[in-house]
């Protein structure tokens, strides 16, 4: 990809279609790094297991960063862990994306104010594409985050040159669709039906 990447000026039918094709491939095979540091990791496992089943989006966990496209930072990042996260991130091959999952990875979460050891947000160390709020976010919210990330990937230009003013990587915040529906929390989204 290296010699062809962002080389072409014209917006013609070949380049746009090739870009779309390549992006389709990327967004439907987001292999993510098997990496979780705290309680959000439990929710991540739930999301990857049979009930929410991330495999159906083409997302397969990889245990080595060298095969991963996506890093889901799930959990509390301590000061000591931060440099390790960065090292894992740097080992991932381009193109790569980051989803910050949960309040801890977003901003320090419950440890934001009174703590001596927790990093106040992983975006201090590595660039983040999508933030998924919640403590912990429910698997549906993470699915929503993945879909938002797919939209980001879909807009990327591979063969064509970046626009005059390349779109900055603006982070996206996902809204939890069931945040105010207490029943959904326990029934996996089923609605209460009155007898």
């Amino acid at each position, binding site marked *: 990809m290296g010699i062809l990447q962002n080389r072409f000026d014209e917006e013609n039918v070949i380049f746009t279609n090739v870009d779309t094709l390549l992006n389709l491939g990327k967004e439907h095979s987001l292999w993510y790094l098997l990496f979780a540091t705290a309680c959000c990791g439990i929710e991540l496992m739930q999301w990857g297991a049979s009930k929410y089943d991330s495999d159906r989006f083409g997302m397969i966990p990889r245990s080595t960063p060298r095969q991963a496209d996506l890093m889901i930072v799930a959990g509390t990042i301590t000061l000591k862990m931060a440099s390790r996260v960065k090292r894992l991130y740097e080992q991932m091959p381009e193109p790569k994306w980051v989803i910050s999952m949960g309040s801890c990875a977003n901003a320090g979460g419950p440890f934001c104010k009174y703590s001596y*050891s927790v990093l*106040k947000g992983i975006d201090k160390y590595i660039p983040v594409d999508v933030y998924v709020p919640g403590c912990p976010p429910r698997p549906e919210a993470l699915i929503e985050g993945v879909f938002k990330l797919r939209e980001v990937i879909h807009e990327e230009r591979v063969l064509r040159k970046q626009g005059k003013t390349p779109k900055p990587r603006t982070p996206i915040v996902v809204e939890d669709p069931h945040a105010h529906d207490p029943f959904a929390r326990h029934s996996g989204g089923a609605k209460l039906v009155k007898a």
Partner: protein
Amino acid sequence: MGIDFKALQETVKQRFGEQVLAWSEFRGQYGLHVKSGRIVEVLRFLRDDPATKFVMLTDVTCVDGLKLPETMEQGFPERFAVVYHLYSLEHNDRLRVKAFVPEDPCEIDSAAGLWAAANWGEREVFDLFGINFRGHPDLRRILMPANYEGHPLRKDYPLKGRGERDNFPKYTEIPEA
């Protein structure tokens, strides 16, 4: 089964005399409070004596007694208490040994020669409370980053930290731990 703690109190008193500060008992759990001077001898005795055989060290931890009320039952003769949790597989009984360590010099002999398990436990106590273990084979920080300053579980450590999370040196290279 079970250890005769009454007899043990007598033996310990005979052997270590003025080293023993107190015994505590709460719902069948016993605690031995000692001075830190001959702590390794005390622990070795408890490990090797056939009547006790505390062959297993389950935990090493520490209590900071800063500004604890004087009226506490057992009292806190020094600022810190290093706590050893011992378990006897043979007698199926436990004992808590508290060794009191002054603020200055903040030192105690290491038990790493008696139990390998003491190695990391003492590193943790060193990391979070700043107690130096004399004769420890490898006394480094274990939980906090190597370039961290201070000992955060001390009672006089500011609750909101000292700004280390804002001023933490940005990553360039993983410092050798």
